[in-house]
């Protein structure tokens, strides 16, 4: 049940932020340099999530098959591969390395 509350709470927060843009007077937010802040925060959060999803483990930090998978994803992104291709290949690299026991 608590997970449900988190799901609904987070959904409401994200929905409210979208709706706020249609209610708040335009110059109120734009004058505060908010778009700069939003751009920087979005990049910072995504970069932070990349790192934590790659090296986080139950015992703190752990290097495993996720890291080479992320490397392959970076190469594919550089060559402008479609989103879904990047995700599928990254998953296959990690799964393959584990299947053959090369990395945990």
């Amino acid at each position, binding site marked *: 049940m*608590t*997970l449900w*509350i*988190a*799901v609904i*709470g*987070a*959904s409401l*927060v*994200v*929905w409210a*932020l*979208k709706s*706020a*843009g*249609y209610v708040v007077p*335009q110059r109120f*937010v*734009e004058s505060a340099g*908010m*778009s*700069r*802040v*939003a*751009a*920087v*925060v*979005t*990049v*910072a*959060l*995504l*970069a*932070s*999530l*990349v*790192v*934590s*999803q790659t*090296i*986080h483990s139950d015992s*703190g*930090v752990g290097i495993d*098959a996720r890291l080479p*998978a*992320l490397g392959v*994803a*970076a190469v594919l*992104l550089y060559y402008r591969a479609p*989103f*879904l291709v*990047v*995700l599928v290949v*990254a*998953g*296959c*690299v*990690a*799964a393959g390395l*584990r299947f053959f026991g090369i990395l945990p």
Partner: protein
Amino acid sequence: MAKEFDASHLRSARSQGIQVGLAVSLYGISFGALAVALGFSVPQTVVLSLFMFSGASQFAFIGIIASGGVAAAGAAIASAGLLGVRNGLYALRMSPLVGAGFWKRVAAAQLTIDESTAVAIAQTDARAARHGFWTTGLVIYVGWNLATLVGALAGNAIGDVRAWGLDAVAAAAFFALLWPRLSAREPVAVACGAAVVTMLLIPVVPPGIPVLVVAVVAIGVAMYRHRVAPHAPERTEGD
């Protein structure tokens, strides 16, 4: 003559919207599969796509809950919200375009995301922008939710997340969302700084917290940068 010109603009806005929409929608399969594999029920997964409807926020939410459990719910909600702030700013830009009408604005609010805004602002006239916004938003809303359901049902068949490399898929998903934003020196510097701070914090604080610390630091840095270099070029909108 002017009419034909106008019609071709509308057609191109619509076809852009459909193309972008279909490509992004497919990505919902990975969200659905991942959420269920990480321990969310199919209804919870479907609710996230229906109501939260913002890819980065959704992935952040399930990722943080997966690493920290329900104890990390606060951090997960905060991260989803912080990633959703930019939608509010897109909404400000889309607001005059959408025009009056309560229900129209309610619907537009839910469809205000990276892709619909990007297609809208890429158009050369207001009518094409309006068509681009609604087409992209509606195609993604329907497609993303259908794809989420398909992925969630498939995810039920997946037992061990790690054996299928789904933990690596989560990391790659954030990377794919980040990549189009690294278009200038400032965002690259911000991303590197955020990565280093996260690495240093992970061993010493609970799951979900490093992301929030990074967000707070980023807000401070952005406000400082805005004061010392207010005329630096704005980032290009994500595509």
